[in-house]
């Protein structure tokens, strides 16, 4: 039996339509220009520190993490923009209705939309590699770090993209969906941070009162729900060689189970967040089925 591997039809169409539009090219041009500007700024500052008599190479080490964080930050803005109209746009044209009369499942529709956003993410990533290569030459970057950054960009793209498709599935206006997607990201960032510090503060207050020593306990687990934790760990490791796990370990003695979890902290966090992303896609698929009230 011959069964052909099929590309998701929605993804295929999006690629065809997207490749004919100049919008994406301009966006990538702008982004790369921005990254280049950062490289120039970092180099200029390294130059200035030595009184323009050469480079202070130790400060150039910061080039890669700064570029990496900027790329992740930009991605967290671009992906909400490209996914914000993905479902609402189809709904408005009633092409969503037509899609729903075909055997394609709502989940496939959501997946196709996420896929097309991921293609843009990949284009964005690949186009920025030459700029990242400058960090290769000037300091701080090796192949492992480059692959790590690519992995993190893809993972973040999937996460933010799923939230974006989800928002687009129930928010009519693209701009509102964009803002909501970003707000959800920032919200998770803030909430996990607040819970983390509050937990540490409270548990320490009690352990100090009972004459115990400082221990973060299970509090850092909260940060597993922060989609940006792997990025933080990654930057930390490339820069200082210590991982988040080692910091936690030195901070206090752990129980066996916690110790084991902290060792696999980042992979667990990535898998967890990808599952959450899957959950968002499922919610999007549910919303796609629901016929919204139409304004007459």
């Amino acid at each position, binding site marked *: 039996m011959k069964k052909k591997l099929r590309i998701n*039809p929605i993804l295929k*169409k999006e690629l*065809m339509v997207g490749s*004919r539009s100049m919008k994406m090219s301009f966006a990538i041009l702008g982004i790369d220009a921005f990254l280049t500007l950062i490289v120039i700024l970092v180099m200029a500052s390294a130059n200035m520190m030595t009184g323009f008599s050469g480079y202070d190479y130790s400060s150039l080490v910061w080039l890669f993490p700064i570029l990496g964080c900027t790329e992740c930050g930009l991605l967290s803005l671009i992906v909400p923009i490209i996914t914000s109209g993905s479902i609402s746009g189809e709904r408005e044209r009633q092409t969503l*209705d*037509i899609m729903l009369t075909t*055997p*394609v499942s709502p989940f496939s529709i959501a997946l196709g939309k996420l896929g097309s956003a991921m293609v843009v993410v990949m284009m964005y990533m690949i186009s920025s590699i030459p700029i990242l290569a400058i960090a290769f030459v000037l300091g701080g970057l090796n192949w492992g770090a480059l692959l790590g950054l690519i992995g993190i960009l893809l993972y973040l793209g999937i996460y933010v993209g799923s939230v974006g498709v989800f928002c687009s599935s129930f928010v009519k206006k693209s701009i509102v969906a964009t803002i909501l997607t970003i707000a959800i990201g920032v919200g998770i960032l803030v909430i996990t941070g607040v819970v983390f510090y509050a937990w540490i503060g409270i548990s320490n207050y009690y352990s100090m009162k009972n004459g115990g020593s400082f221990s973060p306990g299970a509090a850092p687990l909260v940060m597993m729900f922060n989609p940006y934790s792997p990025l933080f760990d990654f930057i930390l490791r490339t820069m200082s060689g210590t991982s988040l796990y080692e910091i936690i370990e030195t901070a206090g003695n752990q129980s066996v189970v916690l110790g084991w979890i902290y060792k696999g902290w980042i992979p667990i966090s990535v898998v967890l967040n990808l599952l959450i992303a899957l959950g968002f896609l499922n919610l999007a698929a549910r919303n796609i089925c629901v016929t919204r009230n139409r304004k007459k």
Partner: protein
Amino acid sequence: MLEIQNLTKRYGKFLALNDLNLHIDKGEIFGFVGPNGAGKTTTMRIVCGLLKASSGTVLIDGVNALLRPDDIKRKVGYVPDFFGVYDNLKVMEYMEFYGSMYGMEREEVCEISEGLLELVNLSDKREAFVDTLSRGMKQRLCVARALIHNPDLLVLDEPNSGLDPRARFEMKEVLKNLGTMGKTIIISSHILPELSEMCTSIGIMEHGQLIISGKVEEIMQKSAGTQPIRIKATVSGQGEEDGREYIATVLKEQPSVSKVSYTEDEILVSFTGSEQEAAKLLKTLVERDIAVSNFYREKEDLESLFLEITGGNQE
């Protein structure tokens, strides 16, 4: 082919479909007529599985569409009342896109699309971008698209709305061709005349209920002899008001006259009698000193029936 039983749909408290029953045979071209807001779109969306019914059953080829929506998707093609198209997509790519949603191979889609584009008279546009087509062309393209998977039932929601007369004519030709292909078709419209020519059966809907439905000839027969008579008449020596009153009194004395109403300059008589009785009525009017300048009975067509049923003729 299509059997709708006790279909009810509520939007919140609003009753959009009220215990709707409808039967359409295979190969029928069914005209679904009713004023705006009657519930045509609601019915069609339920049939296509896009909307959940509050209660009732929809059977397509014996398959319960409400319980097994996935099974009917390959049987039904749907053209919504409003739709947009994608920018930057060519006509043939548009067809390919929808073909691939049905899991069809590219070659297969191309072959079928050639035939369909010919059917809807768009063969020369296959390389054109969809958003550059005229409204009528887009509408016809959408019909071709709805046929890509060779469905048995084609559901068209107001395919003529927003089209100019020329485009309407072309659409009508396309739909007539479809009829000869043996497909079962449902077409909705809020205007009856554009359907009466090409439909084999018809249903008139109002306020979520089907008022009348059946084969076009049957409905014509049922309504035979119910056409109103239009009269222009004056009474010499009396003012318009008094004259009208006198004429009305005379008319109401006659057998077969059930109702007298007025349009701007005509008297409209609901009359159930035969031709001879109509002639007798005219004779009586003249004998009673009424100067009749115009007396005619409306032709038996669906439009007047529709207007009568939906109350358009009453004042």
